[in-house]
């Protein structure tokens, strides 16, 4: 399945490896930050709801 990359195999593969690593890393970091903020916000909202008994205005 692997195409014949000839004498430039190292270059092509490393270029793809660098790109995919960086993109995946950025994606994972962004998703983790997203999940963490979402959880933290939910906690804050829940605490607020318990304290006031009022319904929160939104649930973004």
């Amino acid at each position: 399945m692997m195409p014949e990359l000839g004498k430039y195999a190292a270059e092509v593969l490393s270029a793809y490896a660098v790109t995919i690593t960086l993109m995946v890393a950025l994606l994972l970091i962004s998703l983790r930050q997203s999940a963490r903020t979402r959880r933290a916000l939910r906690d804050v909202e829940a605490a607020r709801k318990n304290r006031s008994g009022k319904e929160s205005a939104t649930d973004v």
Partner: protein
Amino acid sequence: MSERLPKPTSLWEYANPRRFMALSGFLLPFVAVGTAAALLIGLIWGFFFTPDDYRQGSTVKIIYIHVPSAMVAINAWLMMLVASLIWLIRRHHVSALAAKAAAPVGATMTLIALATGAIWGQPMWGTWWAWDPRLTSFLVLFLFYLGYMALWAAIENDDTAAELTSVLCIVGSVFAVLSRYALVFWNQGLHQGASLSLDKEENVSDVFYWPLLFCLAGFVGFFILLILVRTRTEVRARRMKALQARERMA
């Protein structure tokens, strides 16, 4: 959204955080699927099923990541510029946060373009790095991204940070364009003219053209996807801060 919002009457209303959250939450899955599909098709097609170039050999395959990342790297800055202007002129809160969210994505894309450019340059020009105007421009662009992100990180008050980074982004854009012309003047480069234009015959032949288009779409989708995710994170973080500030006041 727990409560229904009235139907928007203008595009600007999506700058309201709640509307933005609703719309972006709706769009996110579609963008994710589209991006994944375009990237998979483009990269697999490009990597496995395109022939080698008669001159460049298999290194031509680097084009599928180098050109799209470079394109996104520049357009990310443009998007930040537009978002900064919208924030300064129309005071739409989400746009300031979108600019903040775009910077790390743009910086990463710049890094990818630089790295793949260097790896490509080694066999083609016989050197990892040449002070070619286009390569150097990207290095300078990377520095701009670093400064911009550092300024966001350094200022505690989010309001002040949004304003000052917007000013920096606008002034920086002018200087980025100036730098570009200065660099061309300074050293005529090794790069071929335009790598890709709609007039495809002149540049890249057919076999390379279609997978490249898919890759471009995939990279742009990837950028949009990350902007949506990261802006949503920023909006939530702001809401959390606002709630906590209110608790302290009460």
